[in-house]
């Protein structure tokens, strides 16, 4: 039995998960991070992507956007703007958001607009990816 640690995931619009967890994998700034119990104290940021955590041998998946993570040896706190389970993702809406963002990227944009649109596109594609990988 793997050692457990306390995991708390909170999105800006709802608390997402709180409880024991055996292993956590989240997308960081420069690639994925895997966390086990007794990890050294660390602070890092989330990138939009797929987060997964193992509870009692079962993996749970979700799509996250921006946020940050604080890790201590006993617990992990993830604060994210949005988190969605695959079953809560509206594929249709994400697809429309992706198309809109792609359309906008083709226009001549100011730097700021460009980065904003790219973020929107990232989020939409990430949602679609998570949904595709875990069709319920």
């Amino acid at each position, binding site marked *: 039995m793997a050692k457990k640690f306390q995991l708390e995931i909170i999105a800006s*619009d709802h608390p997402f998960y709180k409880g024991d967890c055996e292993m956590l994998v989240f997308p*960081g*700034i*420069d690639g994925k991070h895997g966390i086990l119990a007794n990890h050294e*104290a660390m602070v890092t940021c989330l990138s939009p992507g797929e987060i997964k955590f193992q509870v009692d041998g079962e993996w749970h998946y979700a799509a996250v956007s921006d946020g*940050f993570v604080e890790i201590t040896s006993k617990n992990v706190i993830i604060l994210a703007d949005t988190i969605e389970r695959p079953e809560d993702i509206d594929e249709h809406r994400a697809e429309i958001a992706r198309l809109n963002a792609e359309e906008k990227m083709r226009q001549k944009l100011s730097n700021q607009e460009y980065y904003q649109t790219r973020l929107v596109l990232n989020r939409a594609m990430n949602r679609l990816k998570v949904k595709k990988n875990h069709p319920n």
Partner: protein
Amino acid sequence: MANTREIRSRIKSIQDIMKITNAMYLISSSKLKKARKSLAATKPYFEALQATIYDILVRAPHVHNVFFQRRDEIAPSDRKKGFLVITADKGLAGAYNHNVIKKAEEEMKKSNNNYLFVVGQVGRQYFNRKSVKLDGEFLYTAQNPTLYRAENISKTIIDLFEQKELDDVYVIYTKMITPMKAEVQFGKLLPLERKKFERRAAGYQHAKFDPSSEIVMDRLVPNYLKGLIFGVLVESFSSEQNARMTAMEAATKSAKDMLKRLELQYNRARQAAITQEITEIVSGAKSLKK
């Protein structure tokens, strides 16, 4: 004593106003329900965000980052202070707007270089009349806060802070402590301060920042500010609806009291008029008999 017609017209006007206050009471109570729900959903995030940032700042090693620049070389009187003031879009909310504005003015007296960022129509118009330096482009409503709006606000503030147009940034908002009690809060947004002494006192080690503390802070601080401003907006919106609801409830109640008093006066005046008429008829008839 006022005549019956005057009293009638007063009763009518009070009834009309009572209809309005009662309608506003109903509207704000249904809006409050929605605001409370979003507050309850956001509160865990807001609280965890503040606790986590505090913890991170306790464990942070020394960083060279723009968000930690205290700019001590600038004299206190020359510092450019920015205030993010959260007011409502409409009045008639009791002391809600007044309290926030009063606090803002109190803080502004302490310095000569004030820049205001006002959310909500009421505050913006008030400070416009007083010809205080306002950011004209900063037009945000206080209704139904969204994360997107919070992101825009925090971006504006961070940009100005990075360009050294602002040296200190504060936020003034209303926090709902209990449904019956709201309090104006005053807090510092930027620059952040490392809690060196608290760390030593708690005996913590420095945490590792991956890939480096500069890169992490560059992304973490905007994210933190966005979350914080979102929480502040949600909290304020909820207290606004609450303040309006109690104010309108009190107004409806005092209108009812007033109506009761006027009804009594009206009846008295009516009776007096009848009595007088009868006396006049009787005395008229008496004089005819003679």
